[in-house]
Structure formats: C-alpha cells, structure tokens
C-alpha cells in the first residue's frame, strides 16, 4: 500500500516512510494496564516516544518490560489505557486495524523466530509480498539490499539453520526492515546469543539508530544502552520507576531500586 507507492526510495538510506509529522510522538502510551488473571503486570504506564528517538528499557526480569514491548504491537492484550502508534490506535478486536498497525511496527525477538522452512531471502520477502503486494523484482532487489546492509548479502539462498545465531538475528532485522516500519521493537535480541556474536548484532542496531530509526529496546546490555540510547527507562514492578538520559540513569540513579538494580549487575 503506502510503501508500494513510495516515490523511488533513495538506494540505501531510506528505512521508513514517515506517517506523522516530525516532532509528534510516534508511540503514545497512556495509562496502560495489563494483568494475567489476578496478577497485574503493568500498573499504569505513560510513555511517549518521539520519531527518531532511541529508548532503552531496563529492569529485572518480571518487571513487565517485555510485556510492555509486546503490547505495542498487540502480541499482548491489555485491559485498560490506550496505545497509539503513528497516529493509529491499537484496537485488539479489529484484525484489519491490527494489521495496519503492525505494518508500522517491526519486532525483533530474543529467539529470532525466522521461518525455518524458507530461505533467508524468502524470509525477508514473504511479508512485503503478501501484505504490501510488492512486485517480485522490486521485492527481491530490496531484500538483497537489506541483507547487504546487515552484512549477509551472500546468504540470500541459505536456510536459517545454516546460519549462526548472530547471523539469524541480523536476518530477522532485515526481515523487519523490509516492511518499512516506523518504529522497531527489540525484545532482548542478544540474550540468546553466544557472547562473541553479540557485537555483530549490536553494531547493526547501532547503525539503525544513527540513521534515525525509532527504536524501543528491552536490553541487558547496559553499555550498549548507555552508548546508543537517547533515553533510558527503568521499570520496576509494572511501573516506569525512573527514566532519563543515559548519563543520569547510569551515573546518578535517584531511587534505591535503580541503585540496587545497577549494583546487582556488577556482581
């Protein structure tokens, strides 16, 4: 739809088609609450993310940070509050609205979730072909370009299980980029990787940030968050407990919970 009508994208750089004016929040979360049965995991979250902003979400496991991320593209259903992405409200009951929204939100998973029965190239081309009805030649050219971008041009015809974890995760990034999302969600994307493979994935993410992609990432890589993020959010017991610039959060934590969390990382 929108992307197919793109006026000839500049070869390498165009990552996304903006849907809102510059300066407006691309993600707006208001008073969001979610519970599993009696257990409330998100207890009223308010969060605005600006276009081009890089937000890192940190916190203990069980603090609700992954759940929050998964709410943003509707993988989790929330009970109260509202969530607007790129001007589109999240409506769980409307399959059409959900698909509209998901075209604007890319998601990278901890466990990659590549489609094991498709080649790397087909993994990247599947959704643009089916959802955006992009024509085959254009789709393939774009897929090759994106794979080149993540450093995997020669893996176009490989199967996912022939790749290392780091390579698979980079394919997953290319696959998400192929849909021209306005915002990318990264859910602990290096947690399932061997330590020596973390760097190659983070470098790709960093380059996305440099090119102005809006990023929301749940991460355990504090050094990376400090280096790349514009803003860091510390979640604790289902709430945004503290947030601010990386230097403030890591350099001068205000609340005892954040202090304790940060010091526990150095053990």
């Amino acid at each position, binding site marked *: 739809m929108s992307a197919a009508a793109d006026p000839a994208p500049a070869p390498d750089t165009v990552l996304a088609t903006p849907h809102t004016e510059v300066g407006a929040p691309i993600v707006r979360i208001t008073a969001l609450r979610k519970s599993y049965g009696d257990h409330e995991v998100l207890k009223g979250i308010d969060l605005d993310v600006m276009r081009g902003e890089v937000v890192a979400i940190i916190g203990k496991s069980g603090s609700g940070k992954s759940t929050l991320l998964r709410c943003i593209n509707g993988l989790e259903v929330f009970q109260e509050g509202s969530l607007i992405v790129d001007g589109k409200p999240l409506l769980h009951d409307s*399959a059409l609205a959900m698909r509209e929204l*998901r075209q604007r939100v890319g998601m990278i998973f901890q*466990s990659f*979730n590549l*489609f094991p029965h498709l080649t790397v190239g087909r993994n990247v081309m*599947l959704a643009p072909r089916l*959802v955006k009805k992009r024509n085959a030649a254009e789709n393939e050219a774009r897929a090759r370009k994106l794979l080149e971008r993540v450093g995997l041009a020669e893996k176009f015809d490989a199967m996912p299980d022939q790749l290392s974890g780091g390579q698979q995760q980079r394919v997953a990034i290319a696959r998400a980029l192929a*849909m021209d999302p306005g915002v990318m969600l990264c859910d602990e994307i290096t947690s399932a990787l061997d330590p020596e493979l973390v760097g190659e994935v983070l470098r790709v993410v960093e380059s996305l940030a440099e090119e102005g992609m809006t990023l929301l990432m749940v991460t355990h890589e504090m050094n990376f968050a400090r280096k790349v993020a514009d803003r860091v959010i510390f979640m604790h017991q289902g709430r945004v407990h503290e947030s601010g610039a990386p230097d403030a959060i890591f350099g001068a934590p205000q609340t005892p919970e954040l202090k304790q969390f940060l010091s526990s990382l150095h053990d």
Partner: protein
Amino acid sequence: MVDFTLWDIVRNLLLAARWTVILSVIAFIGGGLAGLILLVLPLTGNRVAELAIGGYVQVFQGTPLLMQLFLLYFGIALFGVDTSAWTAACAALTLYSSAYLTEIWRGCVASIPRGQWEASSSLALSFGQQLGHVILPQALKVAVPPTVGFLVQVIKGTALASVIGFVELTKAGGMIANVTYQPMLVYGCVALIYFALCFPISLYAGSLERKLNVGRR
C-alpha cells in the same frame, strides 16, 4: 462339495481384499478432508467450534469403532434412507478417520513454536497467510509420518465392516472358512494379507519419522 486348493482360497481372499483397499482409501481421503476443516475451524479462535470439535474427537476416540458402525448402519435407516453396509461403512470410517486425523494434525500445529505465530503476526500477515505460508508448511512436515501411520489403523479398522455384513477381506475369510472347514488356514491367510498391506506402510511411516528426527537434530 467342491475341493478348495490353497490357491482358490488365496485368490478369493485377494479379490475381497480389493474392497478392503477401496474402503480404506475412501475413508482415509474423506476423513482427511473433513479432518482438515475440523483442524482449521478452531484455529480462528472460535471457542464454540473448539469445544464442539474437542467433544467430537473425544466421542470418536472414546467409543468402539464397531459401535460407530452399528450406529450409522441403524441410524441412517432411521432417517428413512435405505442403508447398505457399504454406505454405513464408508460413513462411519470417514467420521472415525476425521476425528483421529484432526487430532493428529492439531498436535502438529501445536508443536510449531509460538514464536512463529508471533513473528508472522508482527509482520502484519493475516490469519490465512500465517496459516498458509508459515504454520501449515512447517506442520505438514511433522504431520506426514503419523498420518501415514494412521493409514494402517484405517486399514485394520475396515475389518470391522465385516460385522455389519460388508464383504471385504475379513468377511470373505469367514465365508470361505465356513465352506472349506479350514478356519486356521483361511484366517492365517487373511492375517498375512493384512500384514502384507500394512507392514510396508508401517515401515515407510517409521523411516519418515526417523528422517524427520535426523533433520531436526
């Protein structure tokens, strides 16, 4: 009194075995088609369909196939439709197969990691696209060995159609045993013919299964 040679017995049994094969094929294909519909319906998130199909599976797996045959034989007659043993056997075995196949396939679909559903819905694929391009192609690979294996169960199941008077291999065996007074020989031959039908399929299913496990590492 005619004397039956061994070849006479085997020849007549083999002729009757055609009906075993035909009945098996009809039940397997019919059951497969019905099973596919029963598989997809509850995946759409329709709770009523899910419960109804769960009950359907439970009833067909929790009652004797012989009773199912009797019920269809006498049940169709209740509607004033003239039932032959042939129709009743086809109907009963088709329903029976559909319940088992849908259950087998449901397990295969459930074995596809949740992440595959999540990744494909994150990419804005519709439910039908998720199913057709991501889930079913993967489930199909896992489903082939147990599906082939179930064919053996269908073939063996057709033997019960003899009880409602359908002349297939087992019924023919009974008839021949009665006229030859050689029940041991005749039922031995019947068993061997079933074995010749089923064993290659079992072996094939087994080798598919092993290949799949090797492929999965």
